């Protein structure tokens, strides 16, 4: 039986811009299971990045709660942050430090021991083929390598939950596929992954469950196979197009 890692309860995020109230999230309820990859899918402005940034505690929710082991994450924010690794959409590595230093400091900030930090760096450098860039500045890296460093930084403290916000946006197809393997490996390591994407093939290939967001609400949530069966389609892309059509008709 799947055990729940996080429970998102009636989460809302509203912004006031001039006199207009914009509802980025409007009552999201969702359970995230231990060890799954859950894909957050939706058109631009659906609320994917807002949801992932709230889960990463980059921003607060306007109302609602995120529950971990029966307690709000806001009751022990530092404890929650210690179990989360966040890869934002924008590469925000420190260009004044080398790649190795970025990772060493990330481990230290999280209270990881020096031995463990160096073990992990050695492992990830070998795994992601990053060793040759160890003493370089992140700004010389290509998009795919920079993304790998970002993922490594998020993994330095062995988080139980990794949030990836559009990890493959703007990358070449072959680099995207390499990163897919990286993300799959996270699951093999027992890490729960929340993957925000607007690439349907990516969500289909990687996700155990897909959560489609629309105008700040969850439109539907199911396994990729479940969605194909429910909509009697052979490709998830067709399901997505069907959903958009439904929305327009409504």
């Amino acid at each position: 039986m799947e055990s729940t890692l996080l429970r998102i309860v009636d989460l809302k995020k509203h912004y006031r811009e001039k006199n207009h109230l914009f509802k980025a999230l409007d009552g999201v309820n969702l359970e995230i299971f231990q060890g799954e990859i859950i894909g957050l899918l939706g058109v631009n402005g659906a609320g994917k990045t807002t949801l992932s940034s709230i889960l990463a505690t980059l921003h607060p929710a306007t109302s609602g709660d995120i529950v971990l082991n029966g307690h709000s994450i806001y009751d022990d924010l530092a404890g929650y942050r210690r179990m989360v690794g966040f890869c934002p959409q924008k590469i925000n590595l420190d260009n004044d430090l080398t790649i190795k230093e970025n990772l060493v400091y990330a481990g230290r900030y999280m209270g990881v021991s020096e031995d463990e930090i160096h073990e992990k760096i050695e492992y990830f450098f070998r795994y992601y083929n990053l060793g040759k860039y160890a003493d370089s500045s992140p700004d010389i890296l290509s998009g795919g390598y920079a993304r790998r460093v970002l993922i490594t930084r998020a993994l330095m403290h062995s988080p139980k939950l990794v949030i990836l916000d559009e990890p493959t946006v703007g990358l070449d197809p072959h680099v995207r596929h390499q990163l897919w393997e990286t993300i799959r490996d996270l699951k093999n390591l027992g890490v729960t992954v929340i993957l925000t994407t607007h690439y349907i093939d990516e969500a289909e290939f990687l996700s155990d469950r897909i959560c489609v967001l629309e105008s700040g609400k969850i439109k539907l949530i199911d396994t990729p196979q479940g969605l194909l069966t429910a909509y009697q389609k052979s490709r998830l892309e067709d399901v997505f197009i069907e959903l958009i059509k439904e929305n327009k008709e409504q």
Partner: protein
Amino acid sequence: MEMLTGLTFLRMLKTDLVKYYRKTFWDDLINKSIWVGCVLIISTYIWPHVGMSEQFGLFMAIGSLVSCSFWDAWGVTAQFVSDLTGSREIDYYITLPIPSWVFFIKQMVFYTVRSMASAWIMIPLSKLILGARLDLWSISYGKFILIFIMTNIFCSTLSLLMTSLVKNMDTIDNVSVRFLFPMWFFGGSQFSWMTFYAAAPLFAYLNLCNPLVYAMEAMHVAFLGQEHYLPFWVCILMLCVFSGICGYIGTRRLIRQLDCVRS
């Protein structure tokens, strides 16, 4: 948990200092030396020929200790704004397992240490240019250290406040011209508050709202004695008050603007 927050704070501070030393420290020393060197040579050796006091160079040298920190604050403001509107490295730091205000306190401490690390060069440089005009034995070192630290703390909190006021890099000059230039010109790097009072009492009283006046006056007291300047301890108290106000408002505004989780 508090211990880990403290450790994370110290580690972030250390990272910033390492980066500063590698990237900017030596350039800062050279730039400040050139800037202050030019000001002191002109005010000590040229201006007396157009009727200025022989002691004006010394007065300017003391003021430059404050001016350097003040304009340093502007430099770090520009860097911070550039990150907020660009690469947003800050997003990483505000999701670390620390309360978000700890990050901003770290910024203030870093700015203070950074500014002090390069401003000290003004003393040997001034001695070199002014010669016998600057008597190092007559300085009240206790008062000097206190006002030196307080000035840099104030400038770091001011920097945070300015960061919260600047919307983007396009409008950054507006803040310097509209806010910092008047503050600095009337702050007393070129005249004491008493001189200003003698010339325009009402405006001198209004100028007491300018925190830089207290930093300049107290720095002059440490070098030249209490006579002719505002009371040293009043200046220290006022700088504490202004630092508290700037730091508190700056942090609050930034937490709100960045929409950080409050904890």
